[in-house]
C-alpha cells in the first residue's frame, strides 16, 4: 500500500480529468455529458485525498472536502436530471445540439 508513489496517483487523476473533459466536449447526449462531469469531479476528489495523505498526513481537511464534493455532486445530478427531463418534455430530445434557442 505504501509502495505506490504519488506520481502514479496524480497521473491517474489527470487522465480521469481529461477523459471527462473529452466526454464533455464530444458527447451530444446530455446524460453522457453529465456522467463526464462526474468523472471530472472524481478526479478532483482523488487529488484532494492524495495531497492530504502525502502533504499533511495527520490532518483530515482534504478528506472532508472530498465528502463535501460528493454531496454537491449528488445534488447537482438531481438538478441536472430535472433539467434534462424538462428539456425532453419540451423538445422531445436530449441532444444538446437541439437546445440552442438561447442565443443572440
Amino acid at each position, binding site marked *: 500500500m505504501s509502495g505506490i508513489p504519488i506520481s502514479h496517483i496524480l497521473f491517474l487523476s489527470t487522465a480521469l480529468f481529461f477523459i471527462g*473533459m473529452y466526454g*464533455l*466536449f464530444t458527447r451530444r447526449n446530455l446524460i453522457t*455529458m453529465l456522467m463526464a462531469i462526474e468523472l471530472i469531479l472524481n478526479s478532483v476528489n482523488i487529488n484532494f485525498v492524495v495531497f492530504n495523505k502525502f502533504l499533511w498526513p495527520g490532518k483530515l481537511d482534504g478528506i472532508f472536502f472530498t465528502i463535501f464534493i460528493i454531496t454537491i455532486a449528488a445534488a447537482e445530478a438531481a438538478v441536472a436530471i430535472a433539467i434534462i427531463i424538462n428539456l425532453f418534455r419540451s423538445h422531445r430530445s436530449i441532444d*444538446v*445540439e437541439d*437546445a*440552442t*434557442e*438561447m*442565443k*443572440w
Partner: protein
Amino acid sequence: MNYSDYIALIPLLPLAGFVLLGLFGKKYFRRSSGYIGVLILVMSTALAFYTAYQYFFVSGKVHDTYQTIIPLKYTWLQFSSGTSINMGILVDAISVMMLVIVTFVSLMVHIFSLGYMKGEERFSTYYSFLSLFTFSMLGLVMASNIFQIYFFWELVGISSYLLIGFYYDRPSAVAASKKAFIVTRFADLGFLIGILILAYEGGTLDFNTLIERLTNTQSSQYINITTASFLGISVMTWALTLVFIGGAGKSAMFPLHIWLPDAMEGPTPVSALIHAATMVVAGVYLVARLFPVYSINEAALHIVTWLGAISALLAALIACTQTDIKRVLAYSTISQIGYMMFALGAAKYGGEAGTGFTASMFHLFTHAFFKSLLFLGAGAIIHAVHSNEMKDMGSLRKFMPVTHITFLIACLAISGVPPFAGFFSKEEVLLAAFNSNKFIYSIALFTSGLTVFYMFRLYFSVFWNKQREKHEPPHGISFTMKLPLIILGAGTMFIGFIPFGKYVSSDGKLLESAFHLNFSIAPVCFALAGIAIAMWMYKTESNRPHRVAAAFGGLYQAAHKKFYMDEIYLFVTKKIIFNLVGRPAAWIDRNIVDGTMNGMAYSTAKISGWIKGIQSGKVQAYAMYFFIGIIVLVIIVLYLWK
C-alpha cells in the same frame, strides 16, 4: 392690512384659474368655466383697486413723494453675493396703475367673452388661456427684478401666441401666431443681451439697485459702463438700446410692428385685451420702469423718440387705407403706442421736464380704456354681421344703439375731443413733444389729425354710409356683451379728469400739469377738421373716397400695401436668410452632424454583428470558452506573473 398679506394673490388667483380650467375645464366646467374665470377676475380686480387705494391715498406717500415698496421678495437663483434672480413684487405708482388697468380690462374682456365666445367648442380652454395671460401680465408689471420681468415677458408672449392661434383650424391664424411669436422672440434676443450687459456692468439684476447704481454718476458701475465702448458707442447706450429693441418688439414699434396687424386673427376680445390694452404697452412700461437710466442717456432716448414718432406716423397713414375693421384698429394701436414712446423719449427725469413721463403713462391709461372699448365694440359688430370687412357694414346705428353710442364715445376720445379721456392725455403728450422738439411736435400734431380721420372713417362707414339692403337685420348682442361696453364707455368719459400728475410722475413727486387752453386750440382744430373730412367722404355712399385715393396716387398705394414692410421681410427672410444661412446650415446638419451620428450607429451595429456570434446558444461551446479561459489564466499565473 399690509401689502404683503394680499398682493401676491392678485396674480396667483388667475394662475389658479388657469390650472383649474386648463386641467379640469373640459371635463367638469364645460358651461361654467366662463363664470369661474369672471369670478376669479372680480376678486383680483377688487384686490387691485384696494391696492391702488392703499398706495395712492393711504400709505404710499412719504414726504410728498411716492415711494417704491417691495413687499415680497424671494431669492430664486443666487449667482454670486450681489447678483441673484429674485421673485419679488414691486409696488410703485406705475406698477399699481398697470395693476388696475390689467385687472380691469381683463375683467371687462372676461365678461364680454361670455357672450362673444358662447357655444365655442373650446370655451374652457379659451378662459384658461385668458387666465394664463392675466397672470403673466400681472407678474410682468409687478416684477422687482429685470430677469423676472423677462420670464413674464416670455409668458405673455406664449399666451399671446396661444390666443392668436386659438382657431387653430384656420391656416391664417396659425401663420399669424407663428409670425407674432417669431418676431417678438427675435426682439427678445435683443432684450436678453441688454439684460446681460446691464447685469454684468451693474452687478445686479434688481431694478432698484440697478437704477441707483447706474444713475449715480460717481459710482464705479456708472463710470465703467459709460467709459467702456463697443464700435465707438458706449456700452450703456448699447444696453439700453438692446433692451428697447425687446420693448419695441412687444410694443409693435416700427420696423418690428408687422406681427400686430396679423395678430388680429385671434378672437376679438383677445385683441382688445392683449393687442390693444395690455401686452403691447409692455414695451412702454419697460422703458418707463428703467426711465431714470434712460433719462441720463441722450442717445437711447433719441432712439426711443424717433422710433416712436415714425411708428406713430406710418401706422396712422396705413390705418387710413385699410378696409378690415380690426386692422384699422391694430394700426391705430401701433400709432398710439408710438405716441407713448415719443412722449417718454421727450421727457427728462424729475420736475417740469418729466411731463413726458406722466403724459406717456396717462396716455397709456386712457388708451387702455378707449382702445379696449373700440375693440370690444368691433367685436360686437363682427359678432352681429359675421364679417371683418367694412364694406359689409353700414347703417348699423339703427340696429345696435348701445354699440353705436359707446363706439362714438371711444372715437371722440381717441380723437382728443374735449372732454373725453383722450383729449387730456393727448394734450399732455403734445405738450411734452412741443417742449422738447418742435419737429416731433409737428409729426405728432399731423398724426393726431390722421388719427381723427381714420377713426371717423371707420365710424361713418360702419354706422352710417349705405343703406342695408340685406333682408335680415343683424341680430342684437347679449347683455354680457353690452355691460362691458357701457362700463368702459362711462370710464372713457370720466377718467380724463383724473389729475394724473398728482399720482404718477417720473420722480414720484407732485407734478402740476402746465396746461394752457391756448395750446389745445391747434389739436382740437385738427380733430374737428379730421371729423369734417371723414364726414364728407364717408357719411353717405359716394365715389368721393375713390377720387381722393386717386388724387393721392402713389402714397395711397404705398400705404395700402403697408409700405411694403411684409414684402421686405419676406425678401430678407426667404431670399437672403433662407438661401445664404438656412440652406448651408441645413446641409451641414443633414450631412455632417447627422452623418457623424449615423456613422457611429452603423459602426456599432457592424461590430456587434461580428461579436454576437460568440453567443451561439451551444452549451459545449460555452464550456470550451470557459476551459480556454482557465488555461489562459493558469498560464498567466504560473509563467507570466512576476
